[in-house]
């Protein structure tokens, strides 16, 4: 079955009343039918029927054996990091989401974990960074905000050979465009707040895994720490997933149109979009994903222009986050990646000239008009 079909069918035929939309079990505890017996549900932190539909749904979409839902993308990532112990080492994509960097650098390093940040587009660099105590490689594909593409197959192969887990943050691609477990990854993590839910109206995180043993370890942490997603929010994520394919198709088309237009703009120095044939990550991404996604980053000539664009956009909202039906623009150096060392940021290209667009499903012409007036002051120029 195709991903788009599976996504639409989540929760259908699962409720005893025949309800097409699975009910919201706004419930904390479950009555035991008799002493020593259980319905399979005891306490909603340990398992909730609405959450289970979502967890099984995302596992199926990813081709995994088990899924887990968390109260935010960061709660999902933190819960995964809690699998490790003092002395363990991680290899991590260098230009990754600032929140992931922060929790590793400011929380887990204090707890005795260490991390090496590498350019994961270079599989050899990843291989060289693996040490005896390395337990996992954490990849973002494409990276945030520079949209660089790592070779998931190759890196998973290297990791497996060295007894290291491969974890892929698939927030930007979603299972509709890429299925990292099929490419050899052991676990996939999502900020489901973004494309998965798709409406900028819910915070959520998801994890999927390829094997039961890892699944059991992740479940232990999910249940013990309890950073679980509430039933109403689970239902909103399920509702969002139903339109995953139509949203992404449209977002992708718009993103491509915008990336092409930006590439022709004199005011724009550089465009990062792996959906463009000229992008260095294009070929690799084509080999492992079904499309370039809906994130487009671009660099303007100076900070003044970047700030002017943020001030002048009318249709596009200046806000953090991404992946929703509405187009958003972000200033990564000062918003999503503000926790990184300025020098490090600059070296990687996350500078004060860089803007990141999350392209929505508005009419592409209206979006271009807005970008044009924000860059040049007039719409007609385009």
């Amino acid at each position, binding site marked *: 079955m195709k991903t788009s079909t599976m996504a639409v069918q989540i929760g259908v035929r699962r409720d005893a009343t025949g309800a097409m939309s699975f009910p919201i079990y*706004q*419930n*904390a*505890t*479950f*009555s*035991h039918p*008799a*002493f*020593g017996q259980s319905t399979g549900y*005891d*306490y*909603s*932190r340990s398992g909730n029927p609405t959450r289970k539909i979502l967890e099984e749904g995302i596992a199926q979409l990813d081709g995994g054996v088990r899924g887990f839902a*968390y*109260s*935010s993308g*960061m*709660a999902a990532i*933190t819960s995964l990091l809690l699998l*490790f*112990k*003092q002395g363990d080492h991680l290899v991590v994509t260098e230009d990754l989401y600032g*929140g992931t960097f*922060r*929790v590793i650098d*400011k*929380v887990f390093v*204090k*707890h*005795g974990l260490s991390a090496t940040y590498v350019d994961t587009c270079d599989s050899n660099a990843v291989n060289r960074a693996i040490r005896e105590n390395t337990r996992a490689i954490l990849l973002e594909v494409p990276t945030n905000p520079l949209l660089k593409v790592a070779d998931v197959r190759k890196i998973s192969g290297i990791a497996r050979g060295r007894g290291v887990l491969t974890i892929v943050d698939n927030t930007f691609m979603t299972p509709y465009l890429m299925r990292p477990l099929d490419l050899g990854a052991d676990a996939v993590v999502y900020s489901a*707040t973004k494309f998965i839910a798709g409406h*900028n*109206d*819910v*915070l959520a*995180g998801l994890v999927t895994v390829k094997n039961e043993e890892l699944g059991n370890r992740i479940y*232990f*942490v999910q249940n*013990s*720490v*309890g*950073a*679980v*997603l*509430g039933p*109403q*929010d689970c239902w*909103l994520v399920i509702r969002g997933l139903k339109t995953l394919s139509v949203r992404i198709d449209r977002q992708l088309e718009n993103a491509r149109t915008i990336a092409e237009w930006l590439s022709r703009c004199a005011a724009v120095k550089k465009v990062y979009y792996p959906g463009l044939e000229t992008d260095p990550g294009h070929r690799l991404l084509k080999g492992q994903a079904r499309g370039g996604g809906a994130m487009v980053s671009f660099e303007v000539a100076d900070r003044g222009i970047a*700030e002017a664009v*943020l*001030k002048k956009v009318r249709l596009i*909202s*200046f*806000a*953090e*986050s991404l992946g*929703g039906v509405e187009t*958003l623009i972000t200033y990564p150096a000062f*918003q999503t990646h503000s926790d990184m060392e300025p020098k490090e940021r600059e070296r990687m290209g996350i500078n004060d000239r860089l803007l990141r667009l999350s392209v929505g499903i508005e009419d592409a012409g209206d979006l271009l008009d807005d970008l044009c007036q924000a860059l040049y002051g007039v719409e007609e120029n385009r």
Partner: protein
Amino acid sequence: MKIGTKILHTGNEIDPTTGAVSVPIFNAATFRQTSVDACGPYDYSRSGNPTRNALEEIIANLEGGVKGFAFSSGMAAISSVFLLFSPGDHIVACEDVYGGAYRVLNKLFSRLGIESTFVDFTDIGKIREAVRPNTRALYLETPSNPLLKITDLRAVSTLARERGLLGIIDNTFMTPYLQRQIGYGMDIVIHSATKYLGGHSDLVAGLAVAADGKIAGQIKFIQNAFGAVLGPHDSWLLMRGIKTLKARMDMHQRGAAKLAEWLQGRPEVKEVLFPGLSGHPGRAIHESQADGPGGIVSFRLQTEEMTKKFLGRVRLPVLGVSLGGVESIISYPVTMSHAGMHPDHRKRVGITEDLVRLSVGIEDPDDLIEDLESALG
């Protein structure tokens, strides 16, 4: 203002824009910004959400702390607070602590190099003996779960201050309506708000309140970085639950007192654990620091066999985990709330096969007595 009134009128329960007397549910992930230099009051819901913030201010106000934090579960609140510590740090915790807190300390935080020792908190000498040079915090429940033992909050706070330790208390059983520990010198108050604060067994939530700005800043950092936050819908449900806290709690206590007295008179019952009973060893201390005994009654039947038979026969209280809801819930701690605890540890502290924990709901107490009577007989 009396606490019962404060529960309804903390000052932030009204939406400033429309005057709506119920705070709106902001199902928003992100917030539009107007300036590059200065962020608006909200930027991303993990960092702050208006519905969640209203709840956080209410709990801070009720507990008398400087700042409140809402989490996706009681365990998420507890785990987020434990994340304040570093490898090599040591925590002294009360020995009959909630099984989930015991599990996370023993199986998870121990891997990150945080050590813990569990002692009987009714004995201040034992706590003092357990404190080491690397001890950073005392972690307790009073009354404790499920044995309803009472810790002397003034003595513990004095010890904590003398030795420079953080005092962390789980106030789930009492709620701020009955006990406000920041006044007794505690630094962090935690709740499984799933229980009495939510009160309807219809949501899973956790809260933490910091007594001062420094601790508040540390918890805020973890809450935002870890992101185990409570969603807006559940935040709203919790505020709705808090509105009836006094009315519910008054009835829970009345029912619990009646049931405890009644149980004490039954030959099948070996022991009743309830801080409102005159024979309870911690009663005087409890009465000096709390405004009521709460709604939880634990008791032991004569034999394990009798206990299991009894649990198989109760009809009105729901057999299940959790507590604090309007409906009575009866639990078997050994296999339910304290299944995460090592069997030897359970045995040592007295969480044994003859023990039952009853969360007395707001049904008519006579109906509950009638049901328990037929289950015993």
